[in-house]
């Protein structure tokens, strides 16, 4: 299917475990983003990527790792999950330049117990 998809939709993991959230887009957008959505904080940018093999930190990068070996994929890894990382995670993509917009995935609800 065309668009931007995230997997899994729901995930429960234990404290200290490593977990990877997947994001795949079919538009060949150069930019991709990871956000977490928390009540009272809105959406906060975790990491972003301007192109394959180019990634950079956002507002709240601690405890997360990203990679982008291919333009269409942008996985987010929690190296050692903590309860404070319980959240809804959204991936987004956009093309570069004026007039663009961010297109969002459907979100992954992660619970760390």
């Amino acid at each position, binding site marked *: 299917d065309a668009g931007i998809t995230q997997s899994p939709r729901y995930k429960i993991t234990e404290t200290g475990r490593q977990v990877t959230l997947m994001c795949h887009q079919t538009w060949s957008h150069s*930019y991709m*983003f990871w*956000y977490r959505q928390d009540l*009272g*904080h*809105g*959406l*906060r*940018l975790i990491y*972003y990527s*301007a192109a394959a093999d180019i990634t950079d930190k*956002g*507002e709240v990068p601690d405890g997360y790792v990203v990679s982008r070996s291919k333009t269409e994929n942008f996985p987010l890894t929690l190296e050692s999950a903590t309860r404070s990382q319980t959240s809804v995670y*959204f991936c*987004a993509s*956009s093309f*570069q*330049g*004026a*007039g*663009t*917009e*961010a297109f*969002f*995935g*459907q*979100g992954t609800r992660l619970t760390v117990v």
Partner: protein
Amino acid sequence: AQRVTQPEKLLSVFKGAPVELKCNYSYSGSPELFWYVQYSRQRLQLLLRHISRESIKGFTADLNKGETSFHLKKPFAQEEDSAMYYCALMNTGNQFYFGTGTSLTVIP
């Protein structure tokens, strides 16, 4: 640095009443401003952007550079407008920053 502020976390209006969701921003450069909407358990979707100056679902927003504001307005609220609304700013580096969101409830 950039910052987007939405002062109202919750907003309730009666059906047919006017609604205004406030958004203020700070950014030293020339930003692009957006409003995104998230209906219950759905993904975020673009509602409108300042550069297109369009009206979507009866909503409009005007960029006021003097007041650094981008308030969202609709003259007559409908029940289907109940949702979470996020104001967003795109900086010159193509990164999108969002406010904390306003949850709008339209009372029948």
